[in-house]
């Protein structure tokens, strides 16, 4: 109407009102800053260290060193030789070998072909301008003074590299075909696994949501089982099924399970529950009225499927595809066990860091791996936000009608998928319990004597439980409290937006990358937080951060369902927000809080990728033990340990269920009273 004209004519206000903060406001902002700081230290700083590492190159700058050599009598000629010139004459080291890592050391005697440590010849060495560094024995020399050394000491002189910043690590990476072939490999197995998993999971979810077949509860349970084991386990199962001495080796017609085939089958196994959950949710929320409309319009089932079912579930399908893609491309355990000579990015990071101690190249591969992971994550977020918008309050749930033929087909189909999942777990349990595969199939518990194997023994198993419990306890508190602060505090918009961003970030960071970033950040002697390196603390911090996002989103969803005016009412009644939090918010959100706790526990039990860089001999974990025992050829004990993780997680789930039912019956009496 007439706003524009009025806006121009009235006088704009003077003297802005600045809010006086209440005690609660100050406490909540303080709390949010503390948790944001936690995320900065446990995520942002380590990632920053990693990025800067990937751009750091280390090179021996020979021009920085000068030497003098005496005659046999110990008399020095006045001639001063620069090492660079010496190398140009001698060609002792080709230029490309002057590149090294941060830990590089170069023995200086290489430039003296007729060097003998018994000779009476004396040597002097210095660095030219204070920028070069060299070691005499273990003593670091940085000054420009001449060091006069006898030959026996001189052979212990080692040059240290100079750090510079640039893209040369990346150039190096992309000019090494063996390395960048992994990108292609990773993407290839991720795409194939995604297609197979999504199709299998879609029909499984469809059967459970849209048919009247029996045993739906059982099938649902079976479908979720792979979440409870480390991704290494299907690899071990595949070794027993299709490996050199596998029972079903013949089915591969001579192809090797070690390689893409193994990785793909294993990936389908461990990503299946994730895809199933997402697609099942999408199918469950479809609107029954659309199907009634389709029937009244006399559409064929085929047409209904393509015009109603698929469009309704499309966001779920797309979202599932990106989640699976992300899981496969970032997974480390499975390709490590079954990948053979088939290199993928996640394993390359491990090989560069653990095998070759080339941390810079590990950082480069990490950066390469982050790109598809972040892309897949970002697309998934966009798609998921659209899925929510499809739900309307008026939707009517779809009620399937029995059809003996379709129900039978679906039962057979689900039975086959279930058999696949149970078979993989069953073969591991079987292998763990027999004496010596495949020659002596008598039962024995020998494989459970973990203390006799490499990998940490039973101690690793107890460490895992301790780590998982701590992660569940500390993680749930930190994450729920953080989500509460960011959802329910007023004002402070920029701060909250930054916090939200930090909370979403971990999902996009592959575990291997996070673990490596932790090495760079926490293993730096100059960092006062260095003390946590190699302790249980760093494992807990890393795991909480690794699984932060999903837990945060669970908490936020639960909090969003609470009336947004509770805080206002509480303030108007002059009650501290803390009272509202403990008396109302926490009890009402208890189901979500328990869900977060079990999610963190299960993932802490099964995770390998991030912690593989961070455990110490004292803090080895069960999942790491599986990896190490498999590496050492103790495959049966590895399977046994993997199944221990499985049973522990089942046990934890049962406790979670009992708690949910028991505690909730008391604290949530108001729910049933409707």
């Amino acid at each position, binding site marked *: 109407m007439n706003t524009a004209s009025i806006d121009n004519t009235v006088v704009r*206000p003077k003297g802005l*009102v600045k809010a006086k903060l209440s005690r609660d406001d100050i406490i909540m902002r303080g709390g949010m800053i503390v948790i944001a700081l936690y995320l900065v230290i446990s995520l942002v700083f380590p990632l920053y260290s990693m990025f800067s590492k990937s751009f750091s190159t280390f090179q021996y700058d020979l021009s920085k060193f000068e030497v003098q050599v005496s005659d046999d009598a110990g008399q020095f000629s006045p001639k001063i030789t620069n090492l660079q010139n010496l190398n140009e004459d001698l060609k002792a080291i080709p230029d490309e070998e002057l590149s090294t890592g941060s830990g590089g050391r170069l023995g200086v005697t290489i430039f003296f072909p007729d060097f003998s440590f018994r000779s009476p010849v004396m040597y002097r060495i210095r660095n030219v301008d204070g920028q070069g560094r060299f070691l005499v024995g273990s003593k670091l020399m940085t000054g420009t003074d001449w060091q006069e050394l006898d030959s026996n000491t001189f052979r212990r002189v080692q040059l240290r590299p100079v750090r510079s910043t640039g893209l040369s690590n990346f150039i190096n990476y992309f000019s090494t075909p063996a390395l960048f072939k992994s990108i292609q490999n990773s993407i290839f197995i991720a795409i194939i696994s995604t297609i197979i998993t999504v199709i299998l999971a879609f029909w499984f979810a469809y059967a459970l949501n849209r048919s009247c077949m029996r045993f739906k509860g059982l099938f649902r349970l079976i479908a979720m089982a792979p979440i409870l084991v480390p991704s290494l386990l299907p690899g071990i199962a595949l070794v027993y099924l299709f490996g050199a001495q596998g029972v079903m080796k013949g089915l591969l017609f001579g192809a090797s399970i070690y390689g893409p085939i193994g990785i793909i089958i294993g990936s389908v196994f461990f990503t299946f529950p994730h895809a199933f959950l997402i697609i099942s949710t999408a199918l469950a929320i479809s609107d029954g009225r659309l199907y009634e409309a389709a029937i009244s319009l006399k559409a064929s089932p085929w047409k209904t499927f393509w015009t109603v079912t698929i469009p309704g579930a499309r966001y779920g399908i797309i979202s599932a595809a990106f989640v699976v893609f992300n899981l496969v491309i970032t997974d480390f355990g499975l390709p490590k066990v079954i990948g053979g000579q088939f290199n993928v990015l996640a394993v390359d990071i491990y090989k560069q860091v653990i095998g070759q101690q080339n941390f810079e190249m590990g950082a480069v591969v990490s950066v390469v791996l982050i790109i598809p992971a972040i892309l897949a994550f970002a697309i998934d977020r966009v798609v998921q936000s659209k899925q929510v918008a499809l739900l309307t309050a008026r939707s009517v749930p779809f009620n399937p009608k029995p059809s003996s033929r379709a129900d039978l087909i679906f039962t057979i189909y689900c039975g086959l998928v279930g058999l696949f999942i149970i078979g993989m777990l069953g073969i591991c349990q079987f292998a763990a319990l027999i004496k010596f595969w495949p020659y002596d199939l008598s039962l024995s518990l020998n494989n459970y004597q973990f203390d006799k194997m490499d990998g940490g023994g039973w101690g690793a198993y107890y460490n895992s439980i301790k780590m998982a419990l701590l992660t569940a306890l500390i993680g749930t508190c930190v994450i729920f409290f953080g989500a509460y602060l960011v959802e329910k505090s007023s004002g402070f918009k920029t701060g909250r937006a930054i916090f939200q961003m930090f909370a979403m970030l971990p999902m996009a960071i592959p575990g291997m990358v996070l673990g490596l970033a932790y090495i760079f950040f926490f293993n730096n002697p100059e960092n006062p937080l260095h003390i946590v390196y190699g302790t249980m603390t760093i494992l807990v911090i890393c795991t909480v951060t690794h699984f932060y996002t999903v837990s945060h989103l669970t908490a936020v969803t639960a909090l969003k369902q609470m009336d947004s005016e509770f805080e*206002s009412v509480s303030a108007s009644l002059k009650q501290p927000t803390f009272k509202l939090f403990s008396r109302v918010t926490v009890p009402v959100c208890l189901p979500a809080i328990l869900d977060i706790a079990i999610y963190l526990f299960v993932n802490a039990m099964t995770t390998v990728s991030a912690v593989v860089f961070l455990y110490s001999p004292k803090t080895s974990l069960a999942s790491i033990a599986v990896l190490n025992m498999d590496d050492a050829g103790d495959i049966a004990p590895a399977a046994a340990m993997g199944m221990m993780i499985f049973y522990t997680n089942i046990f934890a789930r049962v406790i979670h269920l009992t708690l949910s039912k028991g505690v909730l019956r008391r604290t949530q009496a108001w729910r049933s009273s409707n």
Partner: protein
Amino acid sequence: MEGIKDPQSSYLSIKNLWKSFGSFTALKDVSLDIKEGEFVCFLGPSGCGKTTLLRAIAGLDLQTSGAVVQGGKDISNFPASERDYGIVFQSYALFPNLTIEKNIAFGLENTGRSKNEISERVSELLDLIGLPDQGPKYPAQLSGGQQQRIALARAIASGPGLLLLDEPLSALDAKVRVYLRHEIKTLQQKLGVTTIMVTHDQEEALSMADRIVVMNEGKVEQIGTPNEVYCKPETLFVADFIGEMTQFRGTISGKNLVKIGNTELNTVEHRFANGREVSITIRPEDIIPLGAKLPTKSGKNVFSAQLVEMEFLGSFWRCKLKSDEFPEALVTADFSVNAVRRLSIEPKQILWIELPSQSILAFDAQAA
């Protein structure tokens, strides 16, 4: 509660309040005074700024500039927890996991009251709102209307100086709404607590308020008693928003005379100069039907019109009339069932009507 108890002085003063959300200005220089014990309604269409104003008074969303003075104390920048009021939201915002008793007792705890005092006060309040036996139940076990009364009890439990009601009845069905209107008003009078209610329902405002603040696009259009805003609207917006009306464009042609097309109409006294473009309004219930024949003794503003449309609305007929004198628009008139029967008014017939001059209001046409 250390405010001045003089009923004539202002208990709550709003002075030049502005509120911006980014580039959108939700409140534009709002000023008003509310007396102790008064029941005031903020009335306006959605987006007019009434809830923003309430939340600024409550300290939930602080104004950008301007002052709020309650009981003689400048509370402009106080956080909600340091102000003295109780609030009831449309969603009730009852704590779902606490019983009714615990909900009401929530604000009584940590105030130096003993457990006995608290439980006495709670049962007193439950009696007051007429739900004495519901204490041990959970909110979900009560109906919407009952829940809203619990929310009210919780808000007044500690005896605040100001009661704020944010669309408290909007989520309820029509019957309960009418019943609760009466309940709230009675309770408010019994307690004598200064009350502000935000509503977009004019009937609610007219029936409950001592004074109504009509708001539009962030500004106060008019402040007055229900009778004033209905019968003497100060702006075209108020006339249009509250009740029904027919509107014509015309030109001032003399003292209390407006020319519409070729027809001259007598109006109430107005302040406009000759030749000024104005909008004039008349409410449907003010139009008098005279019947098919022109009575011998008829006053000013009498015209013949054709009855184009008749709609039965229970106690009256809503009629649309087309007159050659005002080709611009159909005239809406409400005729009582009684009058329609007495004058045997039928659709399509030609009918004489009178537009009483005291019911014809003139407004600045620019503001339309």
